[in-house]
Every structure is written in structure tokens, then in C-alpha cells.
């Protein structure tokens, strides 16, 4: 009996994963067809890449919040590390690699490496803490990354890459080019991020996360989430697994940041502030913690919603706030929950 139950559970899990891939691929095809037949308005077309980036962010934060069970309030920090390092790489490679998709791919990989490194450095102190203290330290790191990038200058000339902090003392030789200009960020970015690239990144992110979650490490993450002490007592190395999830999540956020940045001509560090971190957290919570598909859908809906509410002009952010509060109240209301579970066809019969 138990064995069968386990197999059924495994099947349900697999079904959920295939459903997620299927939804993503169908949504991609529909959007692609709609945009090539001019069915989508130009403002909606412009949002396709940011939506993909936010979806990847939601998947990556879900790994930390939903699977590992730690609250992170500074995820936008990794996104900005990825955005700046990725864009800088793309600019440096402009003359070397003429084919844009390859340049984009390399930029995203470099962005992921930089963000993973940042995640590792930050993870060392952060993962020693617990609960709300861990959350506030991730918030603090997000703010620190923003402050540093706001005061960071980097340029290139014939002698190589020059960097400076606080003010522009790079002293570039004639013919050199200042790439990162402190609070002005990076401007003159070639918009090489495309919707197919975003969709591919999302699929890769999903594959990485699903494989990780359904591996030995993934089960360890969930054991730590459900009961840290019990997990420790059966010999799981808590720090190692937490670090693994944290670094992987940071790397994906970095790649998403590079994708996001290369959809705009200018990017500044202030774009990736506390509010952005919260925005992504809202995707994860509304989509359901640990539920990748839910997070992806929430990311799409909550990015399109403010745009669709534009006809309400000044009331739109107010409506957004009300929607947020009402949704949280509704999803945590016992009667509504009961009602929704009756609608769910996949509901398990026995308790």
C-alpha cells in the first residue's frame, strides 16, 4: 500500500514537471505566433523579454524560498551583478564575436558565473543565520550591491580593463571607452536579448531546478526546510546544501539579469532595488512556494497586469496593491481554500 502510494506520488510529481514544460512551450509558441502576426501590441511585444527574465527570477528564487525554505529579500542584487557583468562582457566582445546570439549566450554564462561568485561570498555569512535574521542580511547585501555598483567605474583602453570606485579615476588612454559609469550605469547597450533566447533560458533554468530538486541534494534541501534539526541528525551537511541552493539560485538570477539588461539601451543599479526583490518574492508567494509553474504564471500575470491597468492611469498601482492584499487574504482563507480544492481535478482522494 505504502509502496503504491509512493509510486503514485512520484507520478504526480513527474506529471507536474511535464505540465510545466508543456505550458511554457505552448505559451512560447502562442506568443511567437501572435507577435509575428502583429496580434500583440508593440508595448506587449516589448514586455516579452522582461517577462521571461522575471520568470527565470521567480524560478531561481523559488529554489531558495520554496525548496530550501529560507527567505531572501535581496535577490535583485544578484540580478544586478549579472546585468552589469553580462552587459560589460557583451560590450567587450562586440568586436570579437559578431554573431549576436553567441555573444548573448556568453554574456549570460559570464553573468551567471559572476552572480554565483557573489552568491558564494554572501552565502558564507548569510547561511550561518536563521529565519528573519537571514532575511534582513540578504536585504542588507542587496542594498550594499546597489551602493557599490552605483559608485563603480570601469573602462577599457589599449592597456586593458581599468576600474575605480567612487569617482572616475580610470584615466583611460585616448581611444579608450568608459563602460560602467557609476550612477549613470551602462548606456548604449545593443538590444540583443530576444524572446526565443528568453524562452530557452527559462527552459534551461527549469531543467536545472527540476533536476536539482529531484536529486539527492533536492531531497536534502526539503529535509532541511521541513526540519533542520532532524536533517542534521541524520548526517546532512546543512551548510553545504544551503550553499548549493543559494549559489545555484544566484547563478540563475545572474543570467536572468543579463537577459533583462540587454533588452534595454540603458541600465542603472537603482533599477535593481529592494522593490524589485520584493516583486520577485511576490511572484513566488502568489504562485505557491515550491511550485515552479505557479511562480512562472504569477510572474507573467503580475507583469502584464499593471500594463493592462494603464487605462485606470493613476489608480493602477493602488489597484495593484489592493489585488495583492485581497489575493493574500483569499488564498489564506479556510473557506476559499476548501472551495478551490474542490475545483482541483488532480486532488488526492484520501487525506
Amino acid at each position, binding site marked *: 500500500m505504502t509502496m503504491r502510494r509512493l509510486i503514485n506520488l512520484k507520478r504526480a510529481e513527474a506529471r507536474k514537471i511535464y505540465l510545466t514544460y508543456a505550458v511554457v512551450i505552448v505559451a512560447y509558441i502562442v506568443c511567437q505566433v501572435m507577435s509575428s502576426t502583429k496580434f500583440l501590441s508593440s508595448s506587449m511585444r516589448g514586455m516579452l523579454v522582461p517577462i521571461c527574465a522575471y520568470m527565470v527570477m521567480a524560478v531561481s528564487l523559488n529554489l531558495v*524560498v520554496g525548496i530550501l525554505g529560507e*527567505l531572501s529579500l535581496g535577490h535583485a542584487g544578484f540580478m544586478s551583478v549579472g546585468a552589469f557583468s553580462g552587459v560589460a562582457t557583451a560590450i567587450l566582445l562586440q568586436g570579437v564575436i559578431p554573431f549576436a546570439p553567441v555573444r548573448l549566450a556568453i554574456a549570460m554564462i559570464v553573468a551567471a558565473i559572476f552572480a554565483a561568485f557573489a552568491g558564494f561570498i554572501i552565502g558564507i*555569512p548569510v547561511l*550561518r*543565520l*536563521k529565519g*528573519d*535574521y537571514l*532575511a*534582513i*542580511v540578504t*536585504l*542588507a*547585501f542587496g*542594498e*550594499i550591491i546597489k*551602493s*557599490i555598483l*552605483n*559608485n563603480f567605474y570601469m573602462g577599457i583602453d589599449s592597456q586593458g580593463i581599468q576600474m575605480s570606485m*567612487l569617482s572616475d579615476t580610470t584615466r583611460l588612454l585616448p581611444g579608450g571607452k568608459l563602460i560602467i559609469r557609476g550612477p549613470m550605469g551602462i548606456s548604449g547597450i545593443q538590444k540583443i536579448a530576444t524572446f526565443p533566447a528568453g524562452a530557452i533560458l527559462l527552459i534551461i533554468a527549469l531543467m536545472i531546478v527540476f533536476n536539482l530538486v529531484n536529486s539527492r541534494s533536492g531531497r536534502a534541501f526539503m529535509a532541511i526546510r521541513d526540519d*533542520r*534539526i*532532524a536533517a542534521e*541528525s541524520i548526517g546532512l551537511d546543512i551548510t553545504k546544501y544551503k550553499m548549493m541552493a543559494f549559489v545555484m539560485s544566484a547563478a540563475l538570477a545572474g543570467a536572468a539579469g543579463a537577459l533583462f539588461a540587454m533588452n534595454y539601451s540603458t541600465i542603472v543599479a537603482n533599477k535593481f532595488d*529592494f522593490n524589485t526583490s*520584493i516583486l520577485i*518574492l*511576490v511572484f513566488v*508567494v*502568489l504562485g505557491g*512556494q515550491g511550485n515552479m509553474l505557479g511562480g512562472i504564471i504569477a510572474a507573467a500575470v503580475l507583469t502584464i497586469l499593471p500594463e493592462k491597468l494603464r487605462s485606470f492611469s*493613476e*489608480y493602477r*498601482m*493602488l489597484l*495593484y*496593491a*489592493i489585488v*495583492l*492584499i485581497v489575493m*493574500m*487574504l483569499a*488564498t*489564506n*482563507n479556510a473557506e476559499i481554500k476548501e472551495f478551490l480544492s474542490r475545483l482541483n481535478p488532480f486532488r488526492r482522494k484520501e487525506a
Partner: protein
Amino acid sequence: MTFLNFFISGISLGSIYAIIALGYTMVYGIAKMLNFAHGDVIMVGAYVCFYAVARYELNPFLGVVIAMIVCTILGMIVERLAYKPLRQAPSLAVLITAIGMSYFLQNTALLLWSSNPKVFPSIVGRGAFKLFDGELSISHITALTIIACLVIMAVLTLFISKTKMGKAMRACSEDKGAAQLMGINVNATISMTFAIGSGLAAVAGALLCSAYPTLMPTTGSLPGIKAFTAAVFGGIGSIPGAFLGGLMLGVIEIFAKAYISSQLSDAVVFGVLIVVLLVKPAGLLGKMTQEKV
């Protein structure tokens, strides 16, 4: 002497953080939630005070009292509508609701009062005390802020330790179930905590905008985050901790601005927070809770 000047402005800024942090820490202690809308209650308080003083030309202190009353009621309404239904919900849901509430207050303020910055009139004028032949100058608002913080701290400590309501609050923060069995009205106690925290936020708003006189719908969010940091710094849930954390954060911020770099001051403040939490994971005066299996 410049050192002393910086120190005093640090203490003054820190006093404002401390008053705000008290609201965070009391709510956290009792409801175990991070009330991210607290920073926006500060902003509402400052606007009410602004309109009372600048438009209706009331006495500034009367203006502060009106702001306190409005914010107290606001805090209780917010708690009743948004947080009370989520008492049993996972903490992350409450956090998101609090953030939603913060957006709601900010955008309501935007509609009511527009995004144009208002110049806040100082509630005690712009004069200053000159000491040591004018080498040390303490503006009236600085002095008032420090005194207000000390008074609030003293009154609050007495309230928590001596009155019946204070005892109920301590009992609720210790164990809600047991408190209820002892006949304490837990809901009323939590509501009271929000009321006090929001009233204090109004005072903080008036003081903050007297010292830094630009008032916008987003005025409250950064001081809110800083005060939240201060509360964690001192050990969240602890009232003396909020006081200490607030003062230290203010002093560190002003010194970082003066001696390191004004652009990097926020990074320094948060850096110090991280170092403190590494040495004392529950903050300076926080209690370490032992986990039991």
C-alpha cells in the same frame, strides 16, 4: 569640535530611527511579523502634521497630536483589515500582505497629496543653541528629537513593565496560547500594540520631516528600512535593543557620511549590521532562542 557636532547629529538621526524601530520591534515581539507598512505610517503622520500646521495653521504640537491620533487609528484599521485574518497564515503570506499594505498607503498618498515634494515647516523653527562660542551648534529640532526619544523610551519602558496592559503585552509575546488561557484578550493586546507603534510613527514622521524637510509619498520607505535594520541590530523584539540599535545606526550613518563617503554610507551601515549579526546572531540585546526537538 566637528567630531562632537557629527556625533550629536548622529544621535539625533538615531533617535528618529529608534522611535520608528520601537514600532517595528513591538509588533514583531508580539505578532511575530515584519510590518513593512510601518515606514508608510510615518509618511502619513508627516502629511497629517504638515496639513494641520501649514494649511490650517494650528499649533505645531497640536498638529503632532492630531497626526498621532490619525496614525493610531490607521494602524488599528490596518491591523484589523489586513493582518488579523492572517493570524494563522504562514509568515511569508503576512509579509507579502504587509508589503501590499505599504504599496497601498504610498499610492493612496500619491492620489491624495500628489507626488510634488512638500516643504515641511519645522515644528520648532529653525533656530539653534550655540555652545562654546558658537563652535558647537545644536539646532532646536535636534535637541527636541533627542529629548522626545528619551521621554518616549522612558514612558514606554514604564508602560511595559508597570501597567496591566504592558504585562499583557509581555505575556502575549511570550506565549499567546497561555496568555489567552490566563484571560488576556490577545486580539485587543495586539491591536493596542499596533496602535502604540503607529502613534510613535507619527511622532517620528513629524521629527524626521522637521530635520529633513522634503515630504513625498515615498519619504517613509527608506527610513522605514533603516529603522527595521536598527531593530534587528539591537535584537528584534527587544525594546532597549531598538533604542540602542537606532542610536548606533544613526551615529554610524552620520560618521560614514562625514569620514568615509556620503555615497557609500548606506553600504557601510548595512556592512556593520552584517558584522554585528555574525558576532551576535540575534542582535546586540536579542535573546537567543534554543531550538528543541
